């Protein structure tokens, strides 16, 4: 079976979060992107987990080829990481990602899947940790006319050639099945993705991505017109109004807080 995984490069969310916690996160001169050069760029962690989900099929001796595709300006490092993790093929669709929206991205990735012989399973991260939109998998599902199963913590093959997916819903785990080809989005509950060994990372450095030019995908000009444009990004401010509870010991602090909450009828 052929598994295609869609990956995206994002600013390291932990670095962004640390800057935000310290109140030092700044938006670049264009007013809409994070340009602090000390924030590393890496593969969206949910996409890494999608690759991990695919590799677990191989671990279970399922015959499969694993292709990781990335549409963006500089996808080299992300794709090398995918190769080091164990992808058989890495594919780059060079495009300035700031000029595309989810429709364009969905159209590009769907056109790639179709033009490369289709896929039995398309795996995506549940959302990208930069914009948090999580829209592209649904776009792909419509364009490829495949069923969509989202927020998976586990994906297994069924005897009938379909997939059985455990979803992390707000009400608890839900187990669903559907026929392949299908699109499944992977959530962080799948678990930590494997970290490639030094030897694998060295090997992956030599691996060249298959480059698929946008022009070769046969998309109409209108398909490349974004409907949604990012015009601005800003860091929200919080008005602090915290009253510190005083006490010489844990017991005193606790008594003071409970007294306060009772006084205010919160308890």
């Amino acid at each position, binding site marked *: 079976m052929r598994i295609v995984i869609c990956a995206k490069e994002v600013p390291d969310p932990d670095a962004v979060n640390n800057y935000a916690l310290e109140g030092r996160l700044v938006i670049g001169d264009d007013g809409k992107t994070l340009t602090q050069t000390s924030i590393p760029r890496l593969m969206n962690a949910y996409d890494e987990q999608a690759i991990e989900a695919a590799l677990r099929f191989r671990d279970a001796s399922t015959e499969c080829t694993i292709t990781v595709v990335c549409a963006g300006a500089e996808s080299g490092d992300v794709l090398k990481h995918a190769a080091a993790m164990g992808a058989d093929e890495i594919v780059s669709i060079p495009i300035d990602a700031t000029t595309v929206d989810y429709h364009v991205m969905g159209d590009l990735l769907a056109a790639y899947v179709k033009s490369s012989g289709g896929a039995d399973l398309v795996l995506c991260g549940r959302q990208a940790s930069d914009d948090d939109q999580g829209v592209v998998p649904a776009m792909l599902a419509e364009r490829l006319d495949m069923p969509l199963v989202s927020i998976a913590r586990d994906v297994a093959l069924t005897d009938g050639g379909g997939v059985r997916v455990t979803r992390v819903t707000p009400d608890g785990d839900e187990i669903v099945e*559907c026929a392949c080809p299908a699109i499944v989005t992977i959530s962080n509950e799948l678990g930590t993705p494997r970290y490639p060994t030094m030897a694998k990372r060295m090997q992956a450095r030599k691996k060249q991505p298959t480059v698929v030019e946008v022009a070769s995908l046969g998309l109409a000009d209108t398909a490349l017109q974004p409907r949604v444009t990012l015009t601005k990004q800003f860091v929200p401010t919080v008005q602090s109004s*915290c009253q510190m*509870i005083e006490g010489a010991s*844990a017991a005193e602090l606790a008594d003071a807080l409970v007294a306060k909450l009772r006084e205010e009828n919160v308890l």
Partner: protein
Amino acid sequence: MSGPAVVACTWGVAISDIEELLTLGRTVAGTLGGELRWLVLGALPDGATDTAGRFGVGGVDHIEDAKLGASGSDAYVAALAHYCAESPPQLLLFNQTFQVRDAAPRLAARLGVGIVMNGMAIEQDGGTLRVTASAFGGDTRTVYDLAGATPQLVSVSANAVVPEPAASATSPEVRKVAVDLGGVEERVRVVTPPKREGPRLEDAQTIVAGGRGLVDAANFKLVEELAAALGGVAGASRPIVDDGWADPSQQVGLTGKITRPGLYIAAGISGASQHMVGCSAAKTIVAINTDPDAAIFKHARYGLVGDCLEILPELTRAAKAR
């Protein structure tokens, strides 16, 4: 025939979520100079016409079909596509639920129209809809312009809007909208439905949540004990859920539950945006952290600087004593 300006579409959400969406919808419909309609998929909520009237809805559209109610999104997308073809609004709003996260973008793809998820606010600027959304787990806000064909779609985050009834109530009527879903065969089949266990964090009036400051998985019971003493529910930050100290169903935050309790006690939680998204609507937040500069104190009403491992048991004792 021109359609309504704004349609607020809901299914499977609490009345408070609906009130938030109708409040936002009414405001935007006002700036667009048109009508707000409320589209209900599936069962009509109790007191629907009363709620609709108080929140200034022009009319309620109701689509009911046995195929709506499935876990999959095929029937919802088909019903919505049909509705939009019949009377296309300029803007279609949704409460962001995990089902809407699948259905709304699929609808956008099918209609070829723009969509923004995690919406917080909507304004109009010279014919362009401008949507402010949350990004980077809440660390930033992104502003998107929507262009091209209508309806444009916005999925609105829980707690983004404070519900506010209309200045003058309306007397909306319920219009049944017939949709033929006979040809829709849900492609995703449920084998084992989720088992909801115990009270839901989303409904809890009191939540005690723990984070990395608990140091060890075994200490999560200190959080559970205080929650029990207060008649509340235990929650957790994402890092300790990832580490297996707490169940994913207990996770509060962007990729977990969005809560709105009266009291939220955050123990050993740094206050990362991704977590605050899930608890910032609490009426009173109490933060316990060893670091007096922790970001959580910026969001809290009351702060306790100290070790939550020592303070939690004392709070449990004090809460039990009357």
